Each structure stands twice: as structure tokens, then as C-alpha cells.
């Protein structure tokens, strides 16, 4: 592997950005940043939330205008930067929040703007479908091209977006947190074709908060901090600890997990089944307990979470909260019964983007903040907001900043703050650490710990097995719609290899 990489990599500089600066009111998003990418390399770009990664890429793609600095491609300095110029120069961007034409089919999304026509100049739909199907299968992607994109899962959409970039004859593809929503299997698939493209001479900029993945796939890595470039290293010359040190500028705060699980059962699921999603699911969740549920895409774990929050039908079976029958007809009734949910696609669903951080954090707890005469107690509101900004380390000029203007990871922290502020009885978290940096992850884990110590029963659906091991009292593995294994801290059997094996459907049973 190392040899092929060395072969594919040439020392010719493909992209050279020099002295890029960019400021926003109250924020120096980029300061004199130098960044260069060689032909055919996979170049990692890492840094904490708000470090300026997306902004730097925005400047590169001509989406955001830099205050100063130059961009050269293959030694030629560009005098203007616009998305079209950059696409023509062979640079493609797969953004953090993917824009696809949701009401149109996969095929049309792939060929948009350039649909095959017959000799009368009219769109040839047969060719549209065949052509796009052929392109996808060349990448090993199995999607029904006639399906509207709105019917695809997050993982499928991400892959489609990446595939589209590949179709554009790109020489340099920017992947901004592409794996944030992908399962391990899909990540392998993705990495497989990223490497295949690299062998064809395509270079990648790979932005991620998953440092293991950076080590797995990148040739070099550049670290950003507070809008500045800290340095660039060959991946072979650095280890995880040093990389984290460069990112944070010091050691990462540790989080220590002490189980706060009580005896009192808060949430009980008995023999719950929904056809086509999950079967005979039973488990209990105690006061202050944290359990993890993990499984491949399609294992039913996602559906279970959505069913339990009333986003979809829950199916047949019995569920009780504190002994009372719980049948959420809608998310709203679930919320009123004391269940809160952190959705996976939270940028879209969890925030009122145009409003301030303060308003977003306190929307859901306003009733608690209303004083005698029905007047909002602004000071309390302010206090709550500042508490969470502080606890979660949300990078923002202040509580009044519109959430739209925060970096991706910081937006997620705001959603998390909002949820934590509601103090529910049962908290369902769907991939809670997705897209947040190493430090913020620890901050979020600490909040999860705090909440569990306050008695909140927490259920985490996640594919990050290692994180679950650190966080949870028990881990349930789902495979093909059933809970197949249970691992627990008490039984001291939470071993990553065993859990991963169980997730893939390997042998083993709950008590072994």
C-alpha cells in the first residue's frame, strides 16, 4: 500500500494558497494562511470547530471572498475565484451540508444540466437512467437511479454527492467531513473508491474530526487553529497525540466516567416489533443509566430511535415510562412524555438558523423562564445560555450571534445545549459526537455524564463503538432488526473487537 501511494504521489504542487486572510465582524476566520496540496495526494485538514477549515475551503472554491492572499493552481496564479472557474480548473467541493435536488431522481441529480438528448434535441430518459446507472456501478454504488433523492438515507446522499464530484473530471476533490454520517461499512466503501481515484491521479483534501480516519487514508495532514495554519506533516512522521497537541495547543481535558445508574427502571421496552424495521426488541433503561445501541445501517437501530420518538410508527409491543404506558403518536407527544431526541440530521432539523444562539438554546425551556406576569426573565435566560456556551465551549462572538454564522460543529453544540437544557426523563441521542472536534466531544461526553448523574436515562445510537465503550454502562448490538448481543461494564466484557464482530453479525451471544 505504502508503495503504491508513493508511486501515485508526485511532488508537483497542484494547489498553492498563500497568505489568505478573511475576517467577519467579530471573528478573524483566517489569518495569513498558507496551504498547498500536491498532485494525487490525500491531504488531511484538521482543527477544532471554528478553526477556519470550511472558510479556507470556501475561499478556495470562490464561494467566499478573501480579504487578501493568492491562489495558484499548477503554478498559475488565478486572478479571480468563482465556483465556475474553480470547477473548470478541476476542483470540486463536497460540502458539509450536501445540497442535492431532493424532489428529483438520482439519475437527474447525476446528469443535471447535461442530460443526454436524442436527435430531436429532447431529453432521452432511457439514456438518462442507463447512463447514470452505468456511472454509478463503475463506482460500485448500488442505488436505484429512478428513486427521488428525498427517499435516500443520509449515507446514500453523501455517497451520491461524492460520486457527482468524481463525475466532474475533478483533479482535486474537497471532502468536508464526508464520513460524519457514514457507517464503518460505508466508510470502507468510500475509502476504497477514494483510493482508486487517487491511483488515477486525483488529489483529495480530506476534512474530518475522525483522526483515526485521517491516519488511515491521508498522506499528509495540515493543522489549523484559530484561523491560522499550525503546520503540515507527513502522516508517517506524526502520531495521534502530537496531532491533537497541534490542534488544541495543549492536552485535551479528560473525561472520567463514573456510572450513575440506579435501580429504578425509567424506560421499559417489551417485545416491540415493526415490520420491516425491527423485531422483538426488549430492554430496560434505569435512572441515570447510559446505554448504547449500535448496528450496521439497516440493522434497525435508527428506526428504533425514530419509532421511540414518534417520528415513525412505533409498531406493536409495550413501552412504559416510569411505569406508565407510553405510545407516542407524534414527536410532540413523545416530548411531552419526557423523551427528548437529538436527530442525526440536526443542522437541518434542530436549529432556527436565522435566530440567535440564545434563542435557540432556550426555545424549548421558555415556559420555565417566564416570571410572575408572564414576562420573560432575561437574566435567567442569559445565564442558561452562557452556562452552555461555556460548558460546551461554543465558539461564538456572543450569545446574540445568529446560529447560521457559526461553524458546523458549533451549530451542533447549540442543538445539544438546547436539548440538555430541557432536562428530559429519557434522552435519545443519535450520533451525538458527529462533526464535533476532539475537545468538544469530551465536553459533550461530560454533559452526558452530568445529565446521567442528574438521573436522566440516556440512550445513544451510534456507530462509534469506541466512544460508546467509554460512555455507556451497557451496549446493545442490533443485527437484522433484532438485539443480538449485550455487553456491559458490569460484566466487564465491553471489548471493541467483540462488539465490532457482533455488529457485523458474527458469532457470539449475549451472555458469552
Amino acid at each position, binding site marked *: 500500500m505504502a508503495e503504491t501511494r508513493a508511486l501515485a504521489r508526485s511532488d508537483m504542487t497542484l494547489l498553492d494558497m498563500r497568505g489568505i486572510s478573511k475576517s467577519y465582524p467579530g471573528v478573524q476566520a483566517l489569518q495569513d494562511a498558507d496551504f498547498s496540496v500536491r498532485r494525487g495526494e490525500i491531504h488531511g485538514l484538521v482543527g477544532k470547530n471554528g478553526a477556519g477549515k470550511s472558510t479556507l475551503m470556501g475561499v478556495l472554491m470562490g464561494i467566499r471572498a478573501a480579504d487578501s492572499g493568492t491562489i495558484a493552481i499548477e503554478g498559475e496564479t488565478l486572478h479571480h475565484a468563482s*465556483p465556475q472557474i474553480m470547477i473548470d480548473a478541476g476542483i470540486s467541493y463536497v460540502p458539509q451540508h450536501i445540497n442535492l435536488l431532493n424532489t428529483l431522481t438520482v439519475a437527474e441529480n447525476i446528469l443535471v444540466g447535461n442530460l443526454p438528448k436524442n436527435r430531436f434535441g429532447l431529453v432521452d430518459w432511457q439514456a438518462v437512467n442507463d447512463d447514470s446507472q452505468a456511472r454509478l456501478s463503475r463506482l460500485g454504488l448500488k442505488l436505484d437511479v429512478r428513486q427521488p433523492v428525498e427517499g435516500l438515507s443520509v449515507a446514500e446522499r453523501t455517497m451520491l454527492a461524492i460520486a457527482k464530484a468524481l463525475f466532474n473530471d475533478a483533479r482535486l476533490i474537497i471532502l468536508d467531513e464526508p464520513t460524519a454520517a457514514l457507517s464503518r461499512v460505508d466508510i470502507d466503501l468510500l475509502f476504497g473508491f477514494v483510493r482508486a481515484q487517487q491511483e488515477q491521479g486525483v488529489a483529495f483534501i480530506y476534512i474530518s474530526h475522525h483522526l483515526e480516519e485521517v491516519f488511515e487514508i491521508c498522506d499528509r495532514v495540515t493543522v489549523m487553529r484559530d484561523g491560522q495554519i499550525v503546520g503540515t506533516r507527513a502522516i508517517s512522521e506524526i502520531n495521534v497525540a502530537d496531532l491533537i497537541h497541534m490542534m488544541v495547543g495543549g492536552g485535551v481535558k479528560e473525561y472520567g466516567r463514573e456510572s450513575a445508574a440506579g435501580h429504578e427502571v425509567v424506560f421499559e421496552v417489551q417485545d416491540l416489533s415493526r415490520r420491516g*424495521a425491527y423485531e422483538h426488541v426488549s430492554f430496560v433503561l434505569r435512572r441515570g443509566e447510559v446505554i448504547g445501541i449500535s448496528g450496521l445501517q439497516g440493522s434497525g437501530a435508527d428506526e428504533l430511535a425514530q419509532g421511540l420518538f414518534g417520528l415513525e410508527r412505533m409498531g406493536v409491543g409495550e413501552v412504559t415510562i416510569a411505569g406508565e404506558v407510553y405510545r407516542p403518536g407524534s414527536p410532540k407527544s413523545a416530548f411531552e412524555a419526557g423523551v427528548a431526541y437529538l436527530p442525526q440530521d440536526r443542522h437541518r432539523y434542530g436549529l432556527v438558523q436565522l435566530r440567535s444562539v440564545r434563542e435557540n438554546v432556550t426555545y424549548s425551556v421558555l415556559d420555565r423562564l417566564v416570571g410572575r406576569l408572564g414576562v420573560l426573565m432575561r437574566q435567567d435566560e442569559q445565564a442558561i445560555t452562557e452556562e452552555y456556551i461555556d460548558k460546551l465551549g461554543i465558539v461564538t462572538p456572543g450569545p446574540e450571534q445568529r446560529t447560521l454564522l457559526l461553524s458546523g460543529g458549533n451549530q451542533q453544540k447549540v442543538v445539544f445545549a438546547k436539548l440538555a437544557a430541557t432536562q428530559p426523563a429519557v434522552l435519545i441521542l443519535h450520533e451525538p459526537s458527529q462533526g464535533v472536534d476532539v475537545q468538544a466531544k469530551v465536553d459533550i461526553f461530560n454533559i452526558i455524564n452530568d445529565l446521567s448523574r442528574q438521573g436522566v436515562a440516556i440512550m445513544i445510537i451510534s456507530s462509534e463503538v469506541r466512544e460508546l465503550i467509554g460512555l455507556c454502562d451497557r451496549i446493545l448490538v442490533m443485527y437484522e432488526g433484532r438485539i443480538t448481543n449485550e455487553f456491559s461494564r458490569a460484566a466487564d466484557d465491553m471489548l471493541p473487537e467483540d462488539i465490532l464482530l457482533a455488529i457485523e453479525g458474527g458469532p457470539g451471544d449475549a451472555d458469552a
Partner: protein
Amino acid sequence: MKRAEPNRLVSLMVDNLIWLFVLGAFIAFSLLSDRFLSPYNLGNILLRSAAFGMLVLSQAYTFITGNFDLSVESSLGLTAMFAALMLVTSEAGGLGWQLNPLLVILLMLVLGGLIGLFNGVLITKVGVNNLLVTIAMLFVLRGATYGISPGTSISFFPKEFTWLGGGTLARVVTDNGNFVLSVAGIFVILAFLVGHIHTRYTQFGRNMYAVGADADAARAAGINVDRVVIIVYIIAGVCAAFAGLLQAGRLNAATPTMGANLIFAVHGAAIIGGMSIYGGRGNIIGAFGGVLLWSILDTGLNIMGVSPFWIDVSRGLLLLFAVLLDALRVRYQHSAQMRLALAETTVGLHDREQSSG
């Protein structure tokens, strides 16, 4: 375990529900009144809603891109009045120019297109909200129509001018009365057919859908979004001018109130035909189904002697039903359902936003 597949058949039915309704309404009125199925009435259904149909077509175009144009009903009135002034003698209320009818038709289409261009440029280049622009234009154009009119209706147009709106292609005599194949009816069918081919089978048409589905994504795909929207508004304006031509031709008169208060019925017909004001959905053929349903209901109730007030009520109910249907249709799509549910819930956000805003 596989993810539950969205049911293709249900999906297909939901998308084409309009034709079930058309069929249902047709059968229902045939059973309720023997006059409904008479040759004369059948010929009349399309003729009477020809101008209405052209307005629906104009809105189908704007809807696909996620826009709408409230001012088309006023464009209908203004273009018709404008043409009338240039056609007839000063005794009959015109300017006395008596221009060549074909030239006048051309001029009115150009006028419609210019109005559309103006709307489109304000919305895209100046960035004014489409609701505000087209409401403003709704009033401006209607006011202008009154302003230029002699205060009464103008009639007695040359034959060449009224042919499209009021002409007859063929007349079939039966025992039951005459079946009249109107030029206007055929014209509307052709217009929708052209619209269908244009939106489904040309690059421009597909770009319209892309813009409506997600303007940012469309822009990223290299589509000139502003250009698409401006052209769509021009097309809408020309459709409105055609509507003016058809209406004036059928009545052989132009009045300053022509087209007034039609726009919501137009939107209702388009929506019940499967179009969505959120853009990127529906198709032109479905919109035509909407036109048919609307006019079957109208003529049917009329024939049965239902009072105009109740006809209004039934139109209103149909509109309401159309909107419900639209919501259901969106809901049926899984992810869209998530969006709704989560917006109103991940902790009651939606509610508060509305009540506090």
C-alpha cells in the same frame, strides 16, 4: 433486514390522483344530470375554461421553479384591453387605429412577455420577494387597465382576432344537439402538450425543476438560476396574454374587469393537479387535469342549477382539499415527513416560532 421500500404503486397513485378525481367527477355528473353528457356541453367544457387553462399553464411554469405570479390575471385584463383599443374604431370606444389583427396579437404577446420580464428581473436581480412584486403588479396592471379603458367594454372585433378564442373547427350534428369542436379547446390542449414536452424533455425544462428543487444546488450544478426564473416569468406573461386573447375572442369584447379574482382559482387548479408552490414537483399534464376537474365541476354544478354562492363554496372546498392533498403528498415522502415532524417537535420549536413571531 431491509429498509421498508416506499411503495411504488401508492406513490404512482398519489402522483396521479388528479385523473381519478377527473374521472370520478365526470361519472358523478353524468349520473346526476342527463344534460351533462350532451354533445353541446362536452364541447363547451374546454371552450369555457380555455383562458383559465392558459393562466393555469402560466402558474404551472412558475410553480415548478418554486415561484408564482399573482399578477397574471391582471395581465390578462390589460393585454385584452390594450388589443381592443388598437383594433376598433373610435365610435366603438377604441383609438380608431384599426391595426392589422395579427400585428395586434403579436403586440399583446410582446406586452405580456415584457410584464413577465419586469417581474422576473425585479425578483431575481433586484431581489424583491416574489409575493410582494406580483401583488404590486396585480394592482398596477389592473389600475392601468381601467385607466386606458374608455370606461365601458369594447366589442366588435375583426374575425381574425376572435378566431382563436371563439372560432369553430368542426361542428358535428347529432340528435341530441351539436357537438362543437372549438379552436380554443384544441389550442389549450396543444399548449399544455407543448408545455409538457418543454418541461419534461428539454434541458431548459429540467433546469426549471432543478431550480425549484434546490436553487443553491442548481447553481452549484452550473445552472444560471436567475436566467431560468426570468424566462419562466416571461413565459408566464405570454401565457397570460394568450389567455387575454382567448377570453376577448370568446366574448368578442374586452372589459376592464376581465380576469379579475381568477388567480386563486388558478392556483387551486394547479395545486390539485399535483403542482406545489414549494417547487420541483408535479407536471404539466397533471396541471391540465386540474383545469379539467375545475371546469367539469363548474359546468356540472351550473347545469344542475346550483346557486352561484354554493358553486363558490364548492370551489373553496376544492381549493382547501387541494392544499390538504399537497400537504399529504409531501408527507408521504419519508424525509419530508421527518422535516415536518421534527420542525414542530424537536422540542416544540415550530409552534413557538409561530406564536412568538
